[in-house]
C-alpha cells in the first residue's frame, strides 16, 4: 500500500519535470516560427508593394522609394562563392592533414589553432581586413593578378583593395573552421578498415586518403561545404567593412560591391521612411529563408553520411 503510493509520487514528479522541460524546449520551434512571422509582418509593406520585383530588380533608391535587391544578392552570392572556392579546398586538406597525417599530439594543437579562427569576432576580421588585407590586395595581389590573368574579365579594372575579392577572402577565412571541423568529423567516422583495404590493394598514402577517406566521406564533405556556404551567405560585419559598399554588378572581382547583409548594416542608421525600414527587414527575411534552405540541405547530406556510417 505504502509502496504503491510512493511509486505514484515518483511518477508525478517525473511527469511535472518532463512537462517543464518540454514546455521550455517547445519555445525554440516557436521562436523560429516567430522570427519568420515577425520578419514577414514587418516587411509586409514592401512585399505588398514590390512583390517579386524586389528580388529581381537592381534599382535600390531609398529617396525615390524604389527597392530591388538584385545587386546585393549578386554580391552575396559571388562573395560566398569566392569564399567557397578558396576556403573549401583549404579546409578539406586541413582536415585531411589533421586526421590522416598529423600525429595525435600535433593534431591536437593544430586543431586548436584552426578552432581559434572561429573565436575571432567578425568585427575584428573586418578591422584587419580594412587595414591589413586590403592594402596587401591593392598594392601586391590585385596588380599581379591583373598582369598575369588580366585577360579574364574577373581580374580587370583598377585595384581598390576593398571589394569583392577582399570580402571573399575574409569570408573564406571565416568559414575555414566550420568546414574543417565538420570534414574532420566525417573523416574520423570513416572506418579504419577502408583505409586498410586500400593499403592492402597497394595504395600509396595519398591514394588511401583519396579512395578510402575522401570518396567514402564525399556526401559528408558536401554537407560540410554547404554548411560553410550557409555561414558565408549571412556573415555581416567583416564583409560590410571590406566589400566597399557600392551596389554594382561588375564582372571584376576587384570592384566594390554590396551584399544583402552589408546593406542592412550600412543603412540601418539612416533608414527613416517606413518603406525603407520595411525593405531592410525584407532583406532579413530573404536571408532567413535562404540560410534556412541552405542549412537544411547541408544537414540532409551530413545526416545521410552519418546514416551510411551506422549501417556499416
Amino acid at each position: 500500500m505504502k509502496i504503491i503510493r510512493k511509486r505514484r509520487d515518483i511518477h508525478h514528479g517525473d511527469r511535472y519535470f518532463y512537462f517543464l522541460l518540454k514546455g521550455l524546449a517547445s519555445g525554440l520551434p516557436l521562436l523560429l516560427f516567430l522570427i519568420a512571422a515577425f520578419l514577414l509582418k514587418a516587411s509586409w509593406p514592401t512585399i505588398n508593394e514590390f512583390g517579386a520585383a524586389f528580388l529581381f530588380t537592381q534599382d535600390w533608391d531609398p529617396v525615390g522609394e524604389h527597392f530591388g535587391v538584385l545587386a546585393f544578392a549578386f554580391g552575396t552570392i559571388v562573395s560566398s562563392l569566392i569564399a567557397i572556392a578558396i576556403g573549401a579546398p583549404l579546409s578539406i586538406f586541413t582536415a585531411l592533414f589533421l586526421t590522416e597525417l598529423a600525429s595525435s599530439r600535433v593534431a591536437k594543437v593544430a586543431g586548436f589553432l584552426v578552432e581559434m579562427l572561429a573565436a575571432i569576432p567578425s568585427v575584428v576580421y573586418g578591422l584587419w581586413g580594412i587595414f591589413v588585407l586590403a592594402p596587401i590586395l591593392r598594392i601586391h595581389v590585385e596588380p599581379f593578378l591583373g598582369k598575369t590573368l588580366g585577360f579574364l574579365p574577373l581580374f580587370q579594372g583598377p585595384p581598390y583593395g576593398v571589394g569583392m575579392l577582399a570580402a571573399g577572402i575574409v569570408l573564406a577565412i571565416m568559414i575555414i573552421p566550420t568546414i574543417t571541423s565538420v570534414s574532420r568529423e566525417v573523416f574520423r567516422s570513416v572506418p579504419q578498415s577502408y583505409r586498410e583495404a586500400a593499403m592492402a590493394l597497394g595504395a600509396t598514402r595519398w591514394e588511401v586518403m583519396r579512395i578510402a577517406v575522401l570518396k567514402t566521406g564525399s556526401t559528408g564533405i558536401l554537407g560540410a561545404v554547404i554548411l560553410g556556404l550557409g555561414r558565408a551567405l549571412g556573415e555581416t560585419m567583416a564583409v560590410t567593412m571590406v566589400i566597399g559598399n557600392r551596389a554594382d554588378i561588375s564582372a571584376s572581382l576587384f570592384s566594390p560591391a554590396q551584399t544583402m547583409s552589408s546593406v542592412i548594416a550600412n543603412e540601418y542608421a539612416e533608414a527613416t521612411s517606413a518603406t525603407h525600414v520595411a525593405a531592410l527587414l525584407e532583406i532579413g527575411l530573404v536571408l532567413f529563408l535562404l540560410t534556412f534552405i541552405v542549412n537544411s540541405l547541408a544537414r540532409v547530406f551530413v545526416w545521410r553520411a552519418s546514416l551510411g556510417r551506422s549501417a556499416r
Partner: protein
Amino acid sequence: MRRTQPSALSQLVEITYKRRRLVTRAMMIVLIAAFLVATVPLFSVFFHVVRQGLPALNMDFFTHLPAPVGEAGGGLANALLGTIILVVLASVIGIPWGVVIGIFLSEYGKSRFAALVRFSVDMLASIPSIVIGLFVYALVVIPMKRFSGLAGGLALGILMVPTIARTTEEILKLIPVHIREAGLGLGVPRWKMILFIIVRGSMGAIATGVILSVARVAGETAPLLFTALSSRFWFGGLDQPIASLPVQIFNYAISPFEEWQSQAWGGALVLILFVFVTNIITRLALRRAHGSGQS
C-alpha cells in the same frame, strides 16, 4: 602460370608507380601547406591587433568616455561597461533556456518532438546573427519606439541558446548508461536522478560550454546595430540605447580619424584577449577534467 610470365599489367604498373609516388609526396606537402595557409590569418590578426592595439591602451581607454570628434584622448569605458551589461543580460536569458533545452534533448531526446527541437537548435544556430537582430528590432524596438539595452541583451541571449543547448546535450550524453541505471536502481525518481546525478556531475563541463558561448556573443556586432544601437554616454538605463565594444570598434574602424582607428585596434585587442584567454583556460580545464576521468 601467373608466375612465369610478367603480364602486361605488371609492366604498366612499374611505369606508373614512379608518378604515383611523386603525386603522393606532392600531396603530403599540399596538405601541410593547406594547414599552414589556413592558420596564417590567425597569426596575422593576432600580430596586428597586438601591435596596433597596445599603444591605444592606457588609463583613459578604460576610464573615460569617447572624446568628441577632433579631440584627442578619451576612452571606451562606456562601451566596455555596456558590453558587460549586455552580456549579463544575455546570460540571464540564454543560459537557463539553453541548458534546459540541452537537458531535454539528452534525457528525452528520442521523440519526434525532440527531433523538431533539435532541428530548431541547428537552424537557430545557423541563422545569420544580423537576422536575429532584425527580429528583435521588429519584436521590441518598433513597439517600444526606441533602441534599448534590453533589446540588445535579448538578441544576444537568443544567440546563446543554440550553442549552449548543443554543448549541454553533448556533455550529458557522454555520461555512461550504467551511471543512469545505478541512479534509477536506487529508487530515485528520474527527475532527481537527472538533476542531482547527471547534471550536477557535469556542472564543470557545462560551465565550460556556457563560458565559451559568452565569449562568442561578447564579440557579436551585427545583432546590436539596430537593437542596442550605440551611445556616447554612460549607461542610462536598460530602456536606453547602450554602447558596446564591438559596435564601437565598427564605428571607429570605418571612421576617417586616425585617433578613432587606433582606439578601434585597442578595443579589438581587449576583445581578442578576452576571447582567447577564456578559450584557452576553459579548454585546459576541460582537458584536465577529461584526463582525470580517463586515468
